[in-house]
């Protein structure tokens, strides 16, 4: 698990604003999204274009199927836009 160091003064800050990697493990930016992608596995051809295009590495291949990492997907919709099989739809978050 990533540890965020405790700082109380400018002197405690890491030089050059460099912090241990993997901060996104605890920083769940997926909470920002308004729409979430949902895949229709019957239409999906597993061409993986969505995986290539996703700017947040939030398309994951799980047990031979496309899934989304909703903790980090910001709902930009690029996957749905690029999908040639029209297998991804964007649904309003509730």
């Amino acid at each position, binding site marked *: 698990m990533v540890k965020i160091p405790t700082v109380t003064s400018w002197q405690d800050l890491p030089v050059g*604003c*460099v912090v241990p990697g993997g901060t996104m493990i605890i920083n769940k930016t997926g909470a920002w999204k308004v729409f979430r992608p949902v895949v229709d596995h019957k239409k999906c051809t597993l061409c993986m274009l969505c995986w290539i295009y996703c700017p947040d590495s939030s398309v994951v291949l799980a047990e031979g199927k496309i899934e989304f990492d909703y903790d980090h997907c910001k709902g930009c919709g690029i996957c749905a836009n690029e999908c040639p099989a029209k297998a991804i739809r964007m649904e309003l978050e509730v």
Partner: protein
Amino acid sequence: METEKLTFTGNESAALGAKLARVEVVATYPITPQSTIVENLSRFIANGELKAEIINAESEHAAISICIGASLSGARTFTATASQGLVLMHEMLHWAAGARTPIVMAVTNRALCVPWSLHADFQDAISQRDTGWIQFYCENNQEVLDTIIQAYKISEDKRVLLPSMVSLEGFILTHTVERVDVPKQKDVDEFLPPYKNEFFYIDPENPLAENVVVLPDWYMEYRYQQEVAMQNAKEVIDKVSKEYFDKIGRNWGGLIEAYMMEDAEVAVVTMGTIAGTARVAVREMRKKSGKKVGLIKVRCFRPFPVEEFKKFSSLKALAVIDRSYSFGCGGPLCTEVKSAFYNTEEKPLILGVVAGLGGRDVNVGDIINVLEKTIEVSKTGKVERETIWLNLKGEQLR
């Protein structure tokens, strides 16, 4: 001191300085009057004289970005640019300073458009004043070579860790041949050990997050860290200048050089090659008329030598010659010099002089005229015009 006396252009001197500093990564993008710096480095690499990686970039913005990446991976990094190329880098100059990458870049100062020009002018580098880079301005080719080597030692000091710009005026230095004493590689190696980053470097085995988002609660503290590093640089620059003298045998002064200032009543303040001309003017005036004039050469514009200037608060008058301009205000160097004296009890009268824009020649006679005018100001106690544009067609100095 064992050296090799040879003749080199400013650009050859800059390339030699980088070679002697054993740079490991050079990012290149051509621009007049810089191109021969990286051409020379590429020749050194091809000949096997320098072990370094040369990376051809698609723009200056990319060249400086390559330097940032290379520096973060722990390599000693160099690039060179000028004019439009430097201003295209602007965004990444802030990045390089904030990420605390000790890159050294030669800037072959050239005027900015419009109108188009290829000639000497500090507007390019001066416009990068607030990017957080250390800025050196050189008087001759020897100082270019020496300053590039020194700049690595200053930038890589763990109290500093800031990038440095080494300025040499386009054509006046870049394409002019002068005698240059080349220090021996073993002496430079002893002066400048290999770069070791103790704080951070990119390593696939140990992932790091770089340039993370910092919200209003901590942003100011990061900026203050940069300011502390800049203030530390003042001490480090003086120390490194002395160490260089001990090892190589030349000292250009730290942040400033005071020339014939011991008994001076008035002085001219300037940077770069105009300082070389002013040196002759000061000598001539003293010899011919015995007037007590002197020269303050600003070697380092950032960090600005505020404390050094305060020591001259008892002078009667100063003329500050700028080879750049801040429209709607005045010469940038002049503004800084004025502000250095603001809180001193006594202060000299300060006359702003803009000269040599776009490569116009500034000769010994011009500087004698400026000094005569400054003596007049010291006698009348009045500065009638805050800024004079020297030799402007349609205007007279007096």
